[in-house]
């Protein structure tokens, strides 16, 4: 029983199932109700679950997350939508000082099972603040878990797993992949599915390891396919969980392949690639034939749409890094 649907639709189905399965789940955010969200991820949910379960909120991100904290204390499981990556910052104080710390502060007596959904990344030709990749800000924050999906099947299960988790989770959605299709088993039980915080080998290989997540998994897979034509057999790891990162899967791969390249859209400095490179360099010290290389956005604000293709890591830049790794 498998449907071929877009990533966006898969999220919609996943949210619907969570709303069905647990009366305490509420979806809240700007334009999530009648409009169904600017990306239609919550399309039809308010109609079916009512205005108390799918809440159109005032235009105030601190308010969205801050009231979600209160709702969670009361026993609800809020799923907050932040409309775009660049608009999460008004909520940053609530996320970093409250959501991330409540369990610690209360010695585990107050849990906040909050999911904060954020469409992220570029490639859609948008104006400023609509194409950013702020995941490192959250992965650097103890007390938050951070995940991201790269395909419809994962989108469907991961959103349900995130909502079912008692941890506060920032859920990054690769917005430019919203329209990409894949097979999804809508009947599957997410509880028994692949664990939320585990990385997945998206393509097994032997010669080098590409480490990617979210929108860049597709790019990495394309690069691996191209490299295969040149006789290079690249392994692609889809991290899925950005905090914590499943380093077991990463180390195992790199120790086998001896080469690692991390790919992400976010600016390079202190992006996820920094931590991964640091850890891999330490834990695979004697296995590496070349340093861990990073293919990332540059250390600039996300640029104007007409040059974003040059900003974003693409197949060529990944292959260039692979070449550099082999040429080391």
């Amino acid at each position, binding site marked *: 029983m498998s449907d071929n649907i877009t990533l966006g639709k898969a999220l919609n189905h996943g949210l619907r199932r969570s709303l069905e399965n647990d009366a305490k789940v509420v979806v809240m955010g*700007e334009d999530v109700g009648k409009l*169904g969200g600017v990306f239609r991820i919550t399309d039809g949910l308010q109609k079916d679950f009512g205005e108390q379960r799918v809440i159109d909120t*005032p235009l105030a991100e601190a308010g969205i997350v801050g009231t979600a904290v209160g709702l969670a204390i009361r026993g609800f499981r809020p799923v907050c939508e932040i409309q775009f990556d660049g608009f999460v910052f*008004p909520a940053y104080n609530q996320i970093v000082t409250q959501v991330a710390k409540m369990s610690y502060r209360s010695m585990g007596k107050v849990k906040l099972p909050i999911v904060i959904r954020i469409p992220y990344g570029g490639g859609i030709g948008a104006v400023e603040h609509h194409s950013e990749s702020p995941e490192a800000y959250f992965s650097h924050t103890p007390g938050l878990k951070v995940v991201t999906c790269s395909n419809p099947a994962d989108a469907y299960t991961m959103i349900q797993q995130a909502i079912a988790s008692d941890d506060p989770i920032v859920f990054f959605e690769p917005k430019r992949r919203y329209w990409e299709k894949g097979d999804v088993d809508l009947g599957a039980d997410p509880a028994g599915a692949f664990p939320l915080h585990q990385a997945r080998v998206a393509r097994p290989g032997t010669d080098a390891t590409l480490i990617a997540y979210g929108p860049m998994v597709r790019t990495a897979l394309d690069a691996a396919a191209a490299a295969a034509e040149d006789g290079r057999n690249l392994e692609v790891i889809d991290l899925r969980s950005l905090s914590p990162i499943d380093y077991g899967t990463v180390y195992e791969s790199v120790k086998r392949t001896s080469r690692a390249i991390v790919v992400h859209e976010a600016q390079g400095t202190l992006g996820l690639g920094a931590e991964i490179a640091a850890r891999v360099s330490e834990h695979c010290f004697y296995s590496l034939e070349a340093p861990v290389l990073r293919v990332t956005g540059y250390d600039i604000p996300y640029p*104007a*749409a007409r040059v974003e293709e*040059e900003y974003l890591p693409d197949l060529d830049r990944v292959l260039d890094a692979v070449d550099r790794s082999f040429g080391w």
Partner: protein
Amino acid sequence: MANGESEVGADAPAGGFVQLLTPEGERVDSVTTADGTTYSVDFTDDEYKGLYHDLVTVRRLDGEALALQRQGELGLWASLLGQEAAQVGSGRALRPQDMAFPTYREHGVLYTRGIDPIMPFGLFRGVDQGGWDANEHKFNGYTVVIGAQTLHATGYAMGVTMDGKTGGPDGEAVIAYFGDGATSQGEVNESFVWSGVFNAPIVFFCQNNQYAISEPLERQTRIPLYRRAAGFGFPGVRIDGNDVLASYAVTRSALDRARQGEGPTLIEAYTYRMGAHTSSDDPTRYRIASEVESWKAKDPISRLRAFLTKQQIADDAFFAEVDEAAKTLALDLRERVLAMPDPAPVTMFDHVYPNGSPDLDEQRRQFADYQASFEGSEH
């Protein structure tokens, strides 16, 4: 011409508003609000005609931009359709020394500042992110993060006071634009706090166009927005935002209060966004046609035209001339937009830091080398 009362009015929403020109094109002589302030305008015929010209022009340019967007020449457009009177009236009320802090929709205000209307097109075309000098034009960059500019405006206004530039008719004043949705942002409310505490020479101009994308006004407040100001200790006044005369009169009065050192005012321009939120939006999902229809009767342009006609200030020849001039301007704009070059990719490394950064210079160098490696290839 009748004498108006701000707290009543046939079309008025609860709480009334200042209206100096009815939808039917009747002039209201003056309006006195509850706090005793009297608003009126004293325009010459040419000035009335000038306002008409502005309204038509900014609508026409806006339409051209929408067309350009549909043809794929712009990535996005935020239309001002329906809000021309609020923008032209308030924009014309500014004196040359005044400073404006717009959102992303104030193309009409921009026009009234005498700025080349092409200025914001780089942003919407995606070739830059604005790229203009706020001080040169006394018009800050378009701000996309809802509400952020209200604090900038407040700080700038504090600076006006610190520079000793309030207290007389030559004083400077500041205007901050924002929408109904923005009033829910913490930062906007902080700007009310600060403006009150520092008695900043600022006018908060809220275009209440009834929606924040799909969210209707009642998601942001349960009482009229202009009343927010009283809670922070300064006056709030609601105007008919589709009445260019009210917009002018009340803004001019509030700016003059500010420049005299009498502190902030909040103006709520009660209006309606006739089009989509932006070109990416589909308003039929959240509002009914009859609502839009009912606002057509309150159109800012047709009421001024009716007035000009009835008063025999202008005739069809004039209206045709204005249309023609607007069309010419629009076509010129179109041509110039189409001619806007894409930036060289390497320029994306420019202007990150006024003083530059060696680390970034190195990234730029590597990028240039990488780009060069494709030269001659089909990339």
